[in-house]
């Protein structure tokens, strides 16, 4: 499985500073402690190790061959996951969607 983009894991932007990365890392570690979410914790730690300094961030951006996501649609899923706010669709879209669900159910 492809390793996730460490910027996405920590929820920081590519132009983030050491302090930004550290703050995001600590917040996530508090939210996902190792005894409750060991896999997630390991992923957060790994991501932090990979981009915690400017040197490492540059290395990742310039020389890493990791695509960060496994499939094209993951770009959208990552975006939805990391964006601060989730926007609901308008009423008509929701209506059409539910009608499709009804039609789809066999």
């Amino acid at each position, binding site marked *: 499985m492809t390793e996730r983009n460490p910027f996405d894991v920590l929820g920081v932007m590519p*132009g983030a500073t050491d302090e930004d990365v550290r703050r995001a890392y600590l917040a996530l570690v508090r939210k996902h402690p190792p005894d409750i979410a060991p896999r997630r914790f390991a992923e957060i730690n790994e991501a932090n190790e990979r981009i915690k300094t400017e040197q490492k961030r540059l290395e990742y951006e310039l020389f890493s061959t990791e695509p960060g996501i496994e499939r094209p649609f993951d770009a*959208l*899923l990552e975006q939805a996951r990391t964006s601060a706010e989730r926007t609901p669709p308008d009423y008509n*879209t929701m209506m059409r*969607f*539910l009608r499709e669900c009804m039609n789809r159910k066999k």
Partner: protein
Amino acid sequence: MAKKKKKNKKSNALPTAPAQLEALARREYAAGRYRRARDAYKQLHKRDPEKFLPNLVACYKSMAAEMLEDGRLTDAEPILNRLRELTGTPLDPLTLWQPSESNDGRNGDGPVRTPEEEFRRRTRGADASVILLFGENPSDENAEREPALIHNALKCICESRYEDAMKHVRGISAKSPFSHWRLFIKGLVSFYKGNDETAVSALTRIPAASAPAEAAKPFMLLLEAASNSPESANRDEWTMRHAGRLSGYAELSDTLARADYFWSKGRHRDALKLVRKSIPDYGKSDESITARLRRFFELSHFHLEEKAADKYRDVLFARGGRDPDYSKKEYWDLLRILALVLENEGDPLQAERFWKEYMGSLPPPGISKERRDAEILFHIGLIYAEPSPPNPFFGFDRKKAVRDPEKAVDYLKKSIETYENNPVAYKTLLTTYMILRWKRERNKLLDTMVEKFPGDKEVLLHAGSACIERKAFQKGLKYLERAVSLDRLDTNGTAALISGYIQTALADAKKGRADRMRSYMDKAFDNAVEGSESFQLNAGMLLARRAILEYILGNEKEGAELESRARESFSSQAVLDYFMYFAAQVYAPEKKLTPNTYDARAFGTTPDMKLCLQFLAIHDFAKRMGMPERKMIAEAKRINSFATRACKAGYDTADALKYIETCISGEYGNFLESTAKKLLSGLLKTDPKNPKYRLLKLELNSFSETGSLSKVRREYDSILKEAGKRNDTESLKEAQSKLERLRELSFFDEFSDEFSDEFPERLPGGLGEILEEIKELAQMEDPFPPRPRKKSRKKSRKPRKASSKPRKTGEQASEIPANNPPGDNSTQLNMFDSDI
């Protein structure tokens, strides 16, 4: 044909007699053929509307229910409209599934259903009630009804009024046929508010046969992505499309869902073409989502099979330079990717050219151009500083420790000049100097580094050890003490400091300065660790060393006293004897401090495999102390013969394996081989199919026997199977990697046959054309030196390894302090540990 049609028509025709017609209608209805029953009742209704209206209504209801159950909402709508015309009131779809109380040939005559089927029908009815209400404005009279409440809650969600949405559905009880809609609303509210756990819990409780369960799928995909397990979520195209729409990315969702489908089917190029064509910002914007996509499409070929990657690159790089709309951003990105591809292809010279070209681009956000350029220069330096790959034409293991010393040093220096605050670049340059054994340059660089990074522990350790090496003891100790004070838990630092103290004490002892020697040894002792496995840190070993220093000074009594104190801390005296045997020779070779007594005592004890391993560890340490090689060979032979005797006395499997592995490591040439083979044959007798033992046997044999390649390959295949059966992942991995190595060997066999001096017609992966294009664009001169044709290579190359072999980072590179000369392939030495 016409005749046949007529016959069919005749058989479908309804009887005209009312009694017959009514009987037929009842029969068809009972059999669940509602359309035929409806046709019959329609005729009867025309003749007697009052009598047959309920039957006709029942038929329409059953038809509508059936359609809704099948999800044919659009088909059901005209039927429901017809029902409204017949009854004069709008029909609540939920009533379609209410069991009939009468038994007069209406609903009650329908097929008998199980409770599960009834539940399913009821759920579907509730779903139809809610969904059909959309498009109609709920009137005041039905505003309090449950479908209307759900409808209003959904409206609130769409307007981001989440609390209001929950208020609407609060009144729907758990027993209501609409209770699953309440769960759906709760799930949606939690999702949009970011309470993922609550959302998952609510959405997973929705009964599977309902429309909300279907509607929950895209949300679950988004939620499971959030919980990092997207692999378990439903990823069909429909779900993906809606996941995008419902999370606010409607404009991208269709394209990405389609591209994802292409990708999953191995149509990588189609996926890229679609994205490039359908997302106008793809090559231009740095928006997170497009940047993420670009990174994916630009780098994923490193993880594809060779053939697929080559084809994909033809499309990836195809637009370079020709297309007027070709985005500059994508162009620069591709230049960088091209450099990485060439690096990966083992062509540093061309990679270097493209990296230099890429330095004309803008740096990433938040990074200065100097910093970025310095990093690229450092990267190029690192490529040249790495060991050169083995040359297939001159034997596999003949490789240089540094690929190109001049270029490596030049680029690393340029990197430092461009951005002088990067300690990793300094450390890598230092490492390179150490590998090259350019001591003068190394010392000069260390002086600069100490000034530049006075708080860097690693720099201080390097500088201190280098000073001690050139006998600048006071300066060296100052650096080492400072380094240790920065991190007292780092045992490597402490070991380096102890080593510094010992060497200073030794120098004083040789000059007859007993007090100074003792004072330094006391300081060393202050840092020692009781019972440590490290020969540098072990307190007992330090006492033994100090004893030898006292002997050097001629203080036999003090020395003997210290030696006896040292012996108290060792359960096996042989270990200490063997250690002192070496220490005496290293410290004062000219004095002949009875070393023969020590070794006679050491080897005079009862042979034991554990002791053999300890002897090997001391042997290894002594080698690093600087004992002459010839002497060490003789010692290896002695240990081997001691081990042969130990072998007869019996041994632990773990000890035997360790001994065999030490032999295979090659540190001792083949001087341990005879005993290792005996041990291994003993192990194989106990478990002949054991994959680990068999792997070791193949390794051991490679020292002295060369079997046929195909035979060896068959044996690895068999080991692979056995390891799989036993779930022995370690052996499985090792066998796989060995097999891969064998494949490389066979590739070089073919390669050497077809090698010619002709120039390449085409670089792999369509890079030739791309290079041409970029060359034109950049108005470069021909950057390609002649290269051997790679015809046969394309056939037999293994899948690219880029994914599994990450780039060696600067920090990793700087962690290889070594004293080996270029071309020396033996174990690289840690400079902190290179003395006693």
